[in-house]
């Protein structure tokens, strides 16, 4: 099973660029995973259990993160259209 989130990106102001991002299975930033500087932790409960709990939550967070920019842009467009 795989899932792709398609959302609008606004790199240059008002113009929306449709962007696709794979969210299932999740792809993690290599930079982020190197943060621990080689130290690897043992988890309690097991890492698998934590992932089992957190991955669905992360899915919601990532979708919300992408969507949270849209009302901002719509208000911005409204404002600039009036002004």
């Amino acid at each position, binding site marked *: 099973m795989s899932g792709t989130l398609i959302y609008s990106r606004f790199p240059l102001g008002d113009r929306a660029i449709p962007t696709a991002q794979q969210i299932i299975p999740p792809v993690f930033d290599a930079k982020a995973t190197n943060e621990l500087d080689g130290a690897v932790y043992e988890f309690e409960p097991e890492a698998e259990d934590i992932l089992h709990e*957190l991955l669905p939550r992360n899915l919601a967070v990532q979708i919300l993160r992408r969507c949270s920019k849209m009302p901002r842009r719509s208000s911005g467009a409204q404002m600039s259209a*009036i002004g």
Partner: protein
Amino acid sequence: MPSLKDLRNRIAATKATQKITKAMQMVAASKLRRAQAAAEAARPYASRMDTVLGNIAASVAAPTRRRGFCKAPAAIRASPSGLHRRTRPVRPIQHRDRAARTRARQCAYERRQKRSSSSAVGRRATTVAKTLCAADCRTGRPALGAHAGLRKCRDDRREDHRAVRQVRIRCLAH
């Protein structure tokens, strides 16, 4: 040709429309500010979540490179056995510390397998590691600490984590 009354009406209508538009613009501006603040506030959480999951996923993906650390059960915090062991180092480990000892043995096993080095992270684990090492140093013979592959402890307080009072003890392997 429109009459004077028509012109007056038109001017009044335009002014009314202008007022409405101005109000709409102010509403949009306030919504924009609020949306922007909400998006900014959500960003650290989302990116941190990504990082945490990335780290967990990496450790799940590569278990052979795992380094163990002693993690004590919650009971150690309430247990006075740490104090007891200072005066009676050869005393058998307390019942409530059994999980800690098991964990220490596991660490020692992993170390023998050349799969890990040991370090204690967190207050509970630190307490156990300190106690084990102190007992070894005092008696001059490797006992409990050796199980965990510990010889010496060093406080390695992380400046950036001082706010959460996280103490990391690095335990040097034999």
